[in-house]
């Protein structure tokens, strides 16, 4: 008896799917209808990354509610279809397949992880629907190895190499440094990309790279390289690697009597960095995605806390900006057609909470987006080191 029922329900579902599929090949997201515009979201709602995914999907829901309350877009309401990827690349592919074939979404927001964002490239391309990733920083998500762009992959976070340009620009233009030295991890893509773009930008702005020294992840002693750097007498030393080596090399630099300013990126922040090398890092600059204390960021934080009762993760801010870009693109396209939206994504510029975002046509990355420059300072009241927000800063 049970088997008969299962069979019956299965047949019914297949028929239903077929019916919706046939009836709306180019209809559901068309302009004439007053149906809600569907926006997809994928990310982890279960598994290790669930706290981030949950925060991200809740933020999108909150923003959509807000937009709907203000009359929606193009005179239509918005509807969110959020699907769980369980933090798994295969699940991400399945979720996107469902969103584009069954739910007929106009575009997709998320995921936050690079592996999932890379995995969905093929499905997006065959369906002609765009995705805006939130915190996936791997350069290959939007630009292939041969330099061509993945047509339907976009993102709102900066890439690893981008940090290099920002750091170099800030060092040359704002801090007015002329000579820079670099210590980098020869075995890390992150470090190499960061360094390469730092050099290009710094030299283009008239600066000189006076020393470029390498080490390999796992090394603990950097004094031979730092001794050479000291002799070159730089104004600033770029340290584009992760916090353990940052702490060790910063301590050793100060031991050797190096007084140059130290600079790094989003590989620095960690709970133990200051414990290991607080004093050595005092006065250093860090390029970060954004700053929690930035006045432009605070209203969103407060709105989120008011609605959900907890403090938001970084994903809240990134998906907020991804949503803003998408909304602007829908308005610019004047329709909910996925291809029209894709074409419009690189034509709009929005002011998000993490900076001004304009997605580049050749890269699909935010171009000239302002990163948050933070300075490490001792708080005289608490006696602890902390990141002080200096300013938003873009590379161009």
């Amino acid at each position: 008896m049970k088997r008969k029922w299962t069979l019956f329900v299965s047949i019914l579902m297949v028929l239903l799917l077929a019916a919706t599929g046939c009836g709306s090949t180019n209809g559901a997201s068309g302009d004439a209808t007053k149906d809600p515009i569907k926006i997809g979201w994928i990310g982890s709602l279960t598994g290790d990354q669930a706290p981030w995914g949950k925060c991200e999907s809740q933020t999108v829901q909150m923003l959509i509610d807000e937009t709907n309350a203000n009359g929606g877009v193009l005179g239509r309401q918005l509807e969110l279809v959020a699907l769980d990827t369980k933090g798994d690349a295969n699940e991400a592919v399945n979720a996107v397949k469902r969103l584009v074939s069954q739910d007929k979404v106009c575009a997709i927001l998320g995921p936050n992880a690079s592996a999932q964002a890379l995995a969905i490239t093929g499905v997006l391309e065959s369906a002609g629907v765009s995705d805006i990733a939130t915190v996936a920083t791997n350069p290959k998500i939007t630009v292939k190895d041969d330099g061509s762009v993945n047509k339907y992959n976009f993102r709102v976070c900066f890439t690893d190499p981008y940090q290099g340009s920002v750091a170099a620009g800030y060092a040359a233009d704002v801090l007015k440094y002329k000579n820079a030295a670099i210590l980098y991890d020869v075995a890390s893509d992150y470090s190499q990309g960061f360094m390469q773009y730092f050099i290009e930008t710094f030299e283009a702005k008239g600066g000189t790279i006076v020393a470029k020294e390498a080490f390999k992840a796992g090394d603990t002693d950097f004094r031979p390289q730092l001794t050479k750097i000291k002799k070159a007498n730089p104004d600033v030393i770029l340290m584009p690697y992760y916090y353990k080596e940052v702490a060790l090399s910063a301590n050793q630099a100060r031991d050797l009597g190096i007084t140059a300013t130290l600079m790094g990126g989003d590989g620095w922040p960690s709970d133990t960095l200051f414990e290991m090398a607080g004093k050595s890092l005092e006065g250093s600059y860090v390029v970060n995605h954004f700053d929690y204390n930035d006045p432009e960021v605070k209203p969103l934080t407060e709105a989120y806390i008011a609605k959900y009762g907890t403090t938001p993760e970084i994903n809240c801010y990134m998906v907020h900006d991804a949503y803003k870009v998408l909304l602007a693109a829908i308005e610019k396209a004047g329709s909910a057609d996925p291809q029209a939206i894709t074409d419009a994504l690189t034509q709009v510029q929005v002011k998000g909470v993490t900076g001004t975002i304009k997605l580049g046509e050749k890269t699909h990355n935010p171009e000239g987006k302002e990163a948050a420059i933070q300075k490490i300072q001792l708080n005289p009241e608490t006696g602890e080191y902390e990141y002080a927000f200096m300013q938003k800063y873009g590379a161009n």
Partner: protein
Amino acid sequence: MSVFLQQLINGLSIGSIYALMAVGYSLVYSILNFSNFAHGGVIMLGAYIGLYALHLLPMSFLGALIIAALGAGLIAVVLEKVAYSPLRKRNAPSLYFIISAMGASIFLENLVIATIGPTFKTYPEIFNPVPFTFGSISVSRIDVLMFVIAAISLAILVFIIEKTKVGLAIRACSYSSRGSNLMGVNVNRIIFVIFLLGGMLAGVAGMLFGMKYTVYPQIGVITNKSFIAAVFGGLGSLPGAVVGSLLLGLIETLSSAYIASQYRDLIAFTLLIVVLVIRPSGIMGKITEDKA
């Protein structure tokens, strides 16, 4: 000139850490004819013991150093009983000892990750962090301390080996453990002493390493370099281990200073291979028939 002097000091400082660790390898190799790859694990545990001794008990640096040395010595002895002694009793080939050592090393690392955690831990600031400066040359206090403690530890070790009865037995065993056994030397006791001494040196090395850099479960990896230094100097020879370590430290530093830092390991190890091709037993090693 001052840069060259600074680089020499850097090289000697790195070399003296390698030396403290390399001597432990050589001690075991000289008697048992195999390389104790679990030595790195003992060094790592020594670093943790020293850290907790300083944190939990309100004691001086010297007290914590002694506890770290004794604790690591004890661990090395237990390791010998569990991982090597059963193999020795069965006359297993050297290869089995090496496999057992690697297993023990992985076990110790994962034990620490599972119980203490994988994060980095820092030693409290014991000594004035301001380095000594001579013109533009600077030497950190901890480097001077390491050099002195390494020298004292090695001197004590040499004294034990050269001047005491146990030392005589160790030297006899290192020539021929079977012959010494026939002459009435208790080889098991000598092996106990060897692991205790090697372990205590590992404890000292671990604590100093932790103070200078930081403590984490993978610090044993650095012993790969000190093992290579021991081979370079001549496995089984204590002076060889020290000389090999200091030379490796200097070669690494100078090649990164005057050739290119990205090729440092490549240059240093090419040089080592060349030396070993010319002189397979290392700079000061005795010729042995089967090397592990």
